[in-house]
């Protein structure tokens, strides 16, 4: 039973580290601001919550697991809010998405 919990925790940690690396690499390599936010959101929700789940599986039913749950809830609600505020501020300040100018303009951008 303890071995099973250890294996599940290790799988969650490895998957979380993989998604964090993918998100950071996308944040560096994507061509546009909005796609960069999209890539970084992978790190901020999926990667972070998978790592927290892996740590909570190691902690067991203690106060540490409650703290990890609190951090997970904070990330799960506050991080998409911050990303949404960021993207809305960027859109209001006049940064256009890359495909909206490379495509045929205003005819197809707003369905």
């Amino acid at each position: 039973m303890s071995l099973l919990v250890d294996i599940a925790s290790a799988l969650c940690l490895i998957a979380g580290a993989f998604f964090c690396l993918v998100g950071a690499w996308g944040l560096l390599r994507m061509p546009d601001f909005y796609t960069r936010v999209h890539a970084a959101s992978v790190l901020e929700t999926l990667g972070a919550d998978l790592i927290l789940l892996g740590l909570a599986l190691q902690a067991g039913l203690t106060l540490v697991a409650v703290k990890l749950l609190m951090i997970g809830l904070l990330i799960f609600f506050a991080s998409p809010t911050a990303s949404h505020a960021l993207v809305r501020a960027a859109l209001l300040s006049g940064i256009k998405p890359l495909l909206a100018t490379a495509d045929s303009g205003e005819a197809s951008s707003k369905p």
Partner: protein
Amino acid sequence: MSLVLAGATLALIVCTLLALLRAALGPTVFDRLQAANTVGTSAMMLLALFGFLFGRPEFLDLAITYGLLNVIGVIAVLKFFRQGDLGAAGASTEKKP
């Protein structure tokens, strides 16, 4: 098990370095803000992993505080760049014209 924790810690350090690179060469201020947000989230995960790696789970309190400050900081910097004043009244986007 400690090897997995060390590997995840190393991956998160690499994530922080990549986000710092994006913050250094981001063209707009929003790119730098997104990079700062990513660095903050990575730092929270690093604090939690360090706490488990060295057997001191008290670092989780620091992670909670860091997360709260991260979100409030991003919103505050956004408002400052939009209105030039942290004490300005809101709802200026709808009734601009």
